[in-house]
């Protein structure tokens, strides 16, 4: 029998080594796998390269991982949001590197990584400082920038419902980067609010097919980042 469920968030992230590249789902708090991130803080892995659209908020979740100085390098599109103070401090102090990628290019690079596409051309960023040092090429009279596929050792994502095979559905805009990250990681680790029986997810409506998922842990009532931030919570 195929059963990708594991008992705890601690077990789910236990083998993430120092220096790993970790994609973390979520756009702001929507879809952020906060319990998996906290388990990663507890686990202690450091020198991580983290891929996420942002850099977290307050001092919980991704921001707490950054504050604990576990992140050597961030790959993201928008490291500056309301309540985001942790990353800017470490970045200015030279303790964390930043690779800034336009949001659509970030999504497409992750998709390409998962799709076995090593590189592609995009019009995005042509003629801007983010094009600097990248290869430019003309197709049909327009200029495009070459971008590379992005893969990771691990992906940490959150979903709404999952079955034991690893079929996933999400909640509204919490979907965001998670389906493409699931395709681009060697090991995709999922926290789900609910486990259902195989067949309970309508096969036409599965968003992430099971082939992209390796471990599933149930977190029935995940923490809500904005509530924690408003309360001034910190982790650990």
């Amino acid at each position, binding site marked *: 029998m195929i059963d990708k469920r594991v008992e705890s968030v601690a077990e789910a992230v236990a083998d993430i080594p120092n220096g790993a590249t970790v994609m973390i789902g979520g*756009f*702001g*708090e*929507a*879809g952020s796998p906060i319990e998996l991130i906290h388990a990663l803080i507890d686990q202690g892995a450091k020198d991580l390269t983290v891929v996420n*659209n942002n850099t977290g908020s307050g001092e919980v979740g991704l921001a707490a991982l950054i504050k604990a100085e576990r992140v050597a390098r961030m790959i993201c*599109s*928008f*490291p*500056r*949001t*309301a309540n985001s103070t942790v*990353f*800017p401090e470490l*970045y*200015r102090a030279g303790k964390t590197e*930043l690779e*800034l*990628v*336009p*949001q*659509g*290019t*970030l*999504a*497409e690079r*992750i*998709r390409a990584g998962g799709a076995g596409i090593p590189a592609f051309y*995009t*019009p*995005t*960023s*042509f*003629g*801007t*400082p*983010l094009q600097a040092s990248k290869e430019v090429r003309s197709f049909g009279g327009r200029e495009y920038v070459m971008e590379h596929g992005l893969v990771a050792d691990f992906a940490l994502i959150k979903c709404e419902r999952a079955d034991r095979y690893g079929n996933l559905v*999400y*909640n*509204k*805009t*919490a*979907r*965001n*980067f*998670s*389906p*493409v990250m699931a395709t681009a990681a060697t090991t995709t680790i999922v926290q789900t609010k609910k486990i259902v029986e195989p067949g309970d997810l309508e096969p036409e409506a599965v*968003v992430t097919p099971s082939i992209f998922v390796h471990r599933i842990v149930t977190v029935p009532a995940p923490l*809500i*980042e*904005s509530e924690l931030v408003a309360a001034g919570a910190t982790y650990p």
Partner: protein
Amino acid sequence: MTTTQALGWTREQMAQRAAVDIPNGAYVNLGIGIPELVAKYVPEGREVIYHTENGLLGMGPTPGPGEGDPELINAGKRQVTSIRGAAFFHHADSFVMIRGGHIDLCVLGAMQVAQNGDLANWSTGAPDAIPAVGGAMDLVAGVKTIHVITQHTTKTGEPKLVASCTYPLTGPGVVDRIYTDLAVINVGPEGFHVMELAPGVTFDFVKERTEGNLVPAASFVSETE
């Protein structure tokens, strides 16, 4: 340089003026800030579908108190609703819509617009700034028509419509039209073409506050005349 004081359009009026130009049936992406206000002013009888790059087509208004879902947000990370007939999708699919030229119109804020349509709206280039770009470069590269809403000058009175951007570009030659507190301006062959002036504002008043080449458009409408 003179500040514009009470003369010209308010933020709400700028949004309202921009809304007039959104056609029925358009697929529209609204940037953060004043552009977010545009939706509520679209004239009655027009049906417009709003896209937000974090994975929703058919974005509705802000939810009522206690009715929001922290996982139903817009690109500005504010809680929104979805209309009947909406669709959710992942980020790569969302940027297929943007990069692939499927979105009809994007309304964005700006730090500077150059007379050739260059847009700078993501970074001052200051050495200690934390660079953050989001989806702006994808939007200007992919969306069919780019409208900008911005104050005509900075808080200290510096022109935001310039001969050439001094801030890092978001994209070259991408802006089609600009709504400021003073005027509606198209980017055209001669630079900034004034289409329309805010009540009480003269062409010369705008010209004094503009750095690039500003000309009256052929179809120029002055409400003061």
